């Protein structure tokens, strides 16, 4: 899926590659088009990983800024979208680590902040519980599970994004399943 699908997607990938090259040569319009195209992907990923709108928007903006500075250094060894994924996941991790010290307040805050409304698709209480449990997993396990299941990527693609071996992805998913055994 995604990275390994049929020709229309490959055509899109070729277009993306062209845009990347143009942007790397300093073409602002190409870069604008590039982030315009990928914004939804970034935002969607951030949303899935954090589960609330504010953080998702903050992260998406962060990622756009990072892309602006880093695109010149993109070496094309992986797919552009994998690279974007990786930057997004890093941004998520940075933000959550920075927020960890105030983590003890998180529950108290959740009571008063209407911001974290449950998303529509999470209507069933069990589903909401599952999402919360997955988001609370250790970083590697969470990334692996969400990439493979929520983003429906292949293990190979997930491995590329996470910068690890394919087998390790399966291992993390397996570990995650073990961690959540009681819940699922």
């Amino acid at each position, binding site marked *: 899926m995604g990275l390994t699908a049929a020709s229309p997607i490959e055509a899109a990938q070729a277009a993306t590659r062209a845009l990347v090259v143009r942007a790397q040569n300093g073409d602002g319009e190409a870069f604008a088009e590039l982030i315009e195209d990928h914004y939804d992907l970034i935002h969607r990923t951030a949303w899935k990983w954090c589960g609330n709108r504010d953080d998702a928007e903050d992260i998406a903006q962060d990622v756009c*800024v990072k892309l602006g500075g880093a695109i010149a250094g993109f070496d094309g060894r992986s797919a552009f979208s994998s690279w974007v994924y990786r930057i997004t996941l890093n941004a998520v991790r940075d933000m959550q680590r920075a927020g960890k010290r105030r983590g003890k307040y998180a529950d108290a805050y959740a009571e008063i902040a209407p911001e974290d409304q449950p998303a529509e698709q999470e209507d069933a209480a069990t589903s909401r519980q599952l999402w919360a449990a997955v988001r609370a997993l250790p970083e590697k396990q969470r990334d692996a599970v969400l990439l493979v299941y929520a983003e429906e990527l292949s293990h190979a693609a997930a491995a590329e994004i996470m910068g690890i071996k394919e087998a390790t992805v399966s291992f993390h998913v397996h570990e995650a399943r073990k961690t959540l055994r009681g819940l699922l």
Partner: protein
Amino acid sequence: MSDDMHDPFDRLKGAATPAPREEAKKRALASGMAAFAAAQEKSATATKGTHWGQRLTSIIHSWKGNKIMDMRLPIGTAAVALLLLPLGYQLYSTTSMTVPTQAPVQQPVMVEPAPAEPVLTEERAEAPATDTDMTVAAPEPAPLDDALMESEVARDAAAPVVGGNSGLAKQQMSVAAPPPAAATAESDAFYMPAPMPSVVALPAEPSGDVFTSFEEQRLKAVGEEPVSTFSIDVDTASYSYVRRMLEDGYVPEPDAVRIEELINYFPYDYPAAESAAVPFKPTIGVYPTPWNPKTQLLQIGIKGYVPPAGEDKPSNLVFLIDTSGSMDEPDKLPLLKRAFSLLVDQLSANDTVSIVVYAGSAGVVLEPTVATEKARILSALDQLAAGGSTAGAEGIALAYRLAEQAKVADGTNRVILATDGDFNVGISDPDALTDFIKVKRDSGISLSVLGFGRGNLDDATMQALAQNGNGNASYISSFREAQKVLVEEMGGTLDMIAKDVKIQVEFNPAVVSEYRLIGYETRALNREDFNNDAVDAGDIGAGHTVTAIYEIVPVGSGAEMIDPLRYGPEGATGSGDEIAFLKMRYKLPEGDVSQLIEQPVTADVVYDDIGEASDDMRFAAAVAAFGQKLKGSNYGSAIDWDEIAALARSGKGADESGYRAEFIQLVETASLLKPDTDTDRCDVSVSGEVCE
């Protein structure tokens, strides 16, 4: 739950996330473009350089993505850390909070050099520039003086190598390595028990909050400086902050304890003035000092005029609310929302409210709205959410613009800034910011500051802004505190009855030989400033009480600390009836010319026993003693916590609001955190007396 045939994670599939909001997307794309443009510009300017520059850039580019060369970042970080750590350590260790460097004198003299060895190996990691010298210096046990000499040399040798490291070396030598330090204490008289562990545990953890540092008011001889001048201070932020620190189990840093703010936190039952024209009158008392039987306290209390209940001046309030990411804690933005909704409840039909936020969702949240439209105001407040990576540029300017737009002629025009300390609001130059606020103050719009949260609080800036804005700075630590500041004392917070209030006390040298003002260090004025109407001073709101306490040493009491001058003026000339003469200057809210109130302090107000003084006086004295002891003041630290608590209890009075009862609890908390034995009694141990 689900049957095991299905992979439970399958339910994660196909989850639709809500679409991003348009404006967020636009903002993100715009900032992405800006970053891109900036990066382009950088590389463009680089290529415009010489060939050398060009070649260099291209090499760096080719390194990117090369995993081996990615060591650049760690190496750079390590280099920066090596430079910054010693500097930071130096800064930290030069504040008043650290273990005194002469502490080694108190340490047991242990001649074995063994403990020095592991310490030094640790140092090696941190300060490679000095390590060789240090290891040479340390393990030489026999001639200790030589070791000291050599470490001296080591320091000097280290200094030119890396400037920042020398400070570290010095610190570590004196604090961590006992043998050389012990060498200075050769005499047998220095065999002493180890210093009390509490002395080491005493310094509060650096909280991250910023305070203006100040020297304590010193004792002055009436013969040299008979006149004492200061500006009043109605702020109470220091007390709320101190209370919070103590309740959380920390001893606040000395600069966070401003004794006058502690004293002024409590309502006192002074008689109020009768009319708005003379908005306050002084209440004076002289009574024995609880911590020194030979001296007396001179207490001056004033209470601001309280307009009759029916009178309702219009007010125009602009809430300027910090919604930066750091406000995302339960004791910040959510507390702020509840606090402001309390305030809105107090307002009436001729008041208007507007809301401006900065950071993230910068801009006007609520245009000036009549305060009776509570639903609209509250829902606007409710929608505020912390977060956002964009610093809103003109938050403060925008707030003032709104305040001007809705300005009321005969009432209060005030911007109320609520923040946890991030003043990154566009005017990045602090001086420009205070100037801006001063100009606005002169046009009739004042500024109050409410501080929230801990760890990031910039108390120094808060004070500076509020003082320049004719407002007050309060620290809201809890809902209860919000209630005190915004409901019970709203009149005082919003309705200024006099401005630029200055107090000048002249002591009669025939009666008083020495005096010391307790607190008001940050509010001291020059003698000549008193009559200079251009000099700004503190303001007082409706019903505010302000209390100032002097410790005075009566002539011939035997408590004098300063020897009389051999060639000084012969004897005192003034009559013996008056102890001192009190002068106060103030301006009416609309006035530019100051008015004068004068009153002599005569023997009529002297109480021989503190038990005869009023409850308010005993309580204020207890708070002063508490503040001095908590700060580790040079004066009056000898009193026990129990005695302070007893004194406060005796002055508790009716205490309808319960603040005084809370204070007594706080004294007990402080006594646990900073036990009585911590006082300076044993600090100077040259005498060799054995301390417990």
